[in-house]
């Protein structure tokens, strides 16, 4: 049994909140640059140029890429041979978020009740997803999620008879309906299978996969390619002003499901698809 102190968890989460919000990952930067080369619209090229310049300004000046520094979504892969010492891991994660958002000059965007809507003032609580894994370490991933794109996401319980065509049509319709709202070019995370909540979490997790890494399942890989091509024919384009770059990537995760069901979740992310991870 290995011990990890809550202090280590707090420090790590604080750093990851700041890093994720300041530094756009290299895979997304590469996708933006190659998207710019392929863009047909002059206005679209200008917008892509602004987005790339914006990411450079943010990283040079240590400031948030986007003012919507998101609700902090934290994935914890918890090694089953780890003992957390000195307090609650949930409280430690929230303390890390509190410190990261304060010390990183990040916006506090969380309200304590969905109806009464008073800002908590420190961006807590985080949404934390725990998973027990083998081993004696803890992998922490912080994925701040902005709501311009989160609001355009959708989930549908399809019928098994809807099949692959039903899945394709739901993905395409969701993206087309999102239009300019989620700050295109978007990244599309899709979860197919499981139960209602499993599909949603799969869609969120799909957004963590490097954008240049296809699915390991052949038909899913082909579906990712086909959907990206179809989405980029919708015409929405950078900033929604028209063009070829509506999405930078489509990432799909699947899971076994029930004989009666075909859940599909589409989690839309903006061009600032942010995440940072560390192992403690």
């Amino acid at each position, binding site marked *: 049994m290995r011990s990890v102190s809550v202090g280590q968890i707090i420090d790590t989460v604080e750093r990851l909140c700041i890093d994720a919000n300041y530094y756009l990952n290299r895979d997304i930067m590469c996708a933006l640059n190659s998207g710019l080369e392929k863009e047909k619209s002059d206005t679209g090229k200008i917008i892509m140029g602004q987005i790339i310049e914006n990411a450079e300004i943010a990283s040079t000046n240590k400031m948030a890429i986007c003012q919507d520094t998101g609700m902090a979504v934290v994935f914890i892969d918890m090694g089953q041979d780890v003992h957390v010492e000195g307090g609650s891991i949930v409280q430690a994660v929230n303390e890390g978020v509190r410190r990261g958002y304060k010390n990183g000059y990040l916006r506090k965007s969380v309200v304590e009740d969905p109806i009464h809507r008073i800002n908590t003032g420190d961006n807590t609580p985080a949404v934390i997803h725990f998973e027990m894994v083998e081993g004696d370490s803890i992998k922490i991933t912080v994925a701040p999620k902005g709501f311009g794109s989160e609001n355009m996401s959708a989930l549908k319980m399809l019928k098994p008879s809807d099949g692959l065509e039903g899945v394709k049509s739901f993905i395409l319709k969701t993206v087309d309906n999102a239009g300019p709202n989620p700050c295109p070019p978007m990244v599309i995370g899709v979860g197919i299978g499981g139960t209602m909540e499993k599909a949603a979490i799969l869609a969120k997790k799909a957004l963590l996969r490097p954008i240049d890494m296809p699915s390991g399942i052949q038909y899913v890989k082909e579906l990712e390619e086909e959907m990206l091509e179809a989405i980029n024919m919708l015409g929405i384009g950078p900033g929604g*002003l028209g063009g070829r770059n509506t999405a930078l990537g489509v990432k799909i995760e699947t899971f076994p499901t029930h004989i009666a069901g075909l859940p599909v979740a589409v989690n839309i992310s903006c061009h600032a698809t942010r995440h940072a991870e560390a192992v403690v």
Partner: protein
Amino acid sequence: MVYTIEAPLTAERVRLLKAGDSVEINGTIYTARDAAHRRMAAMIQEGKALPFDVKDQIIYYVGPCPAREGEVIGSAGPTTSSRMDAYAPALIEMGLTGMIGKGLRSSAVIEAMIKHGSVYFGATGGAGALISRAITAEEVIAFPELGPEAVRKLTVKGFPATVIIDSYGNNLYEQGKERYRVI
């Protein structure tokens, strides 16, 4: 061609702007987003004075990041405008001539824009660090307890935007999408 816009902005000047025009905005603009709009709508209903006179003004839909010491403001890009659609027509009727945001607007907002002479500018979503460079002064003038949602008076210089919907109802989102749609 990039046009320079001075804010405050008159309805006469608004009528000269066309969907697709690139603009740089100089002058004074105000920020308000969800919670501030909700409060202002209640003030209108109760017959109270708003935190600022909206006549000939531009409202920027933004909730900025806090500024580091010595800086004017943190990252400050546009938020999704449609959440303000329920409140915008009343403000337009009171003389609001411009809105800056991102994303689609309702037909009720567009009708009010056509009737009273108001324009909808788009700023690039997710380019908050870039846009913050065009903001030279910031002052919270109402609802400080709302934090990022407080009403702010901003001084801007060369604020980059595009006319998305003009005061005749022409819509760049529709035109742009149609032009590049092949599905």
